[in-house]
């Protein structure tokens, strides 16, 4: 009985273990993701977002649809439990807050500019920039998990780490933005479709 229990614990442990990739595996993943990003013109996906704050009893859950079009247009449309959309394009943020429209030029704000750029590149997965991040590579539950730790001191105060989870095709399935406090936002993409026709009108304010 004890051995069976130990075996179960070990199996469970193995399933959830996060092991470091070899540098060859990491290079393969980088190459695959870059190739995937190069051939991706558009992405559409449903998403579920969990905002985790340690002191809350439950994570705050919201849902919506995401659309991306090269080179740098992203739309996040929250549908539940509130109606809110945010479009990143041409260095500006366009917001529709339940009918109230506004836009912000983020060109002047370094932090938001960086965040904007990172959200865009994290959707494609292609943010393997060693000058901007300390990057480490893991395998977890049969998927690839990459930790990006920003090097910029000012940005580090805003976000401590990005964790991206990739499927076997090198597509991003999950983005986790971890704040300096340890609280985080986790975005899980589902029913992801690539290279479906999207026009500029899909990103209209």
């Amino acid at each position, binding site marked *: 009985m004890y051995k069976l229990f130990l075996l179960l614990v070990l199996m469970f442990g193995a399933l959830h273990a996060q092991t470091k990739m070899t540098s060859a595996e990491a290079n393969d993943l980088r190459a695959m993701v870059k190739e995937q990003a190069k051939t991706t013109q558009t992405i559409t996906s449903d998403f579920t*977002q969990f*905002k985790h*704050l340690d*002191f*809350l*009893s*439950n994570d*705050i859950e*919201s849902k919506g649809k995401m659309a991306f079009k090269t080179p740098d247009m992203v739309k*996040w449309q*929250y549908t539940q*439990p*509130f109606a*809110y959309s*945010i479009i990143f394009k041409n260095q500006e943020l366009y*917001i529709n*807050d339940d009918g*109230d429209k*506004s836009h912000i030029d983020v060109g002047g704000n370094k932090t938001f500019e960086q*965040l904007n750029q990172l*959200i865009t590149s994290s959707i494609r997965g292609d943010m393997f920039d060693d000058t901007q991040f300390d990057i480490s590579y893991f395998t977890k539950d049969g998927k690839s998990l990459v930790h990006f730790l920003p090097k910029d001191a000012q940005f580090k*105060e*805003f*976000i401590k780490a990005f964790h991206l989870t990739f499927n076997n095709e090198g597509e991003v399935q999950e983005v986790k*933005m971890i*704040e*300096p*406090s340890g*609280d*985080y*936002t986790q975005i899980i993409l589902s029913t992801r479709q690539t290279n479906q026709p999207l026009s500029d009108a899909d990103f209209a304010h």
Partner: protein
Amino acid sequence: MRILLTSIGIFLFIGCASYPKKNGFTTQTSLKSETINPYFSDILKDYVYKAKIDAFGNSFGGLFIVKKLSENHHRIVFTTEMGNTILDFEFKGQNLKIHRILPEMDKKLLINVLKRDFLALISEKPEIVKVFSKGEKMLIGAEVLSKKHRYWIADGKLTKIARTSGGKEKVTFLFSRINDNIVEEIQISHQSFDLKIELKAL
């Protein structure tokens, strides 16, 4: 002449009377320390609101989160819709600990305004000074951070708080769509400057 003088006297008397007297409230003597504001009093509940803020010509939104951790101990966090923390305040009694605030908002004046507003919002048992009643309505004079506040209670529900100075309302907190100690809509408006916060429960 006497009638005229009496009229003037009555006029002056009414004119100088306080808000409660003018509106037919009578003074109550029993001043028990009770929960006046129950809206953020349940430790088991996560209070999450969609927020819209209009401040100094700018308009922005986010999530406004309140959690009661223990008696007189609350955490208040404001994040963007995408989850980035704008501010993270912890109140123990009247003491504020700032866990995080966006550098652009890290101004003493603004922090003081937010501290006063948030404390008025979460204080369950403010220091009661006077209680007036009129039928099912109650008007309570109380102090939060040594500032005068009025609390309007109708049919046992808190519907409004106003911070007053010289008898005038400086900040108002309106509570609507109230069910079982849960308030679905809150509107905080400053009269002296351009700041309005609208909260809708999620």
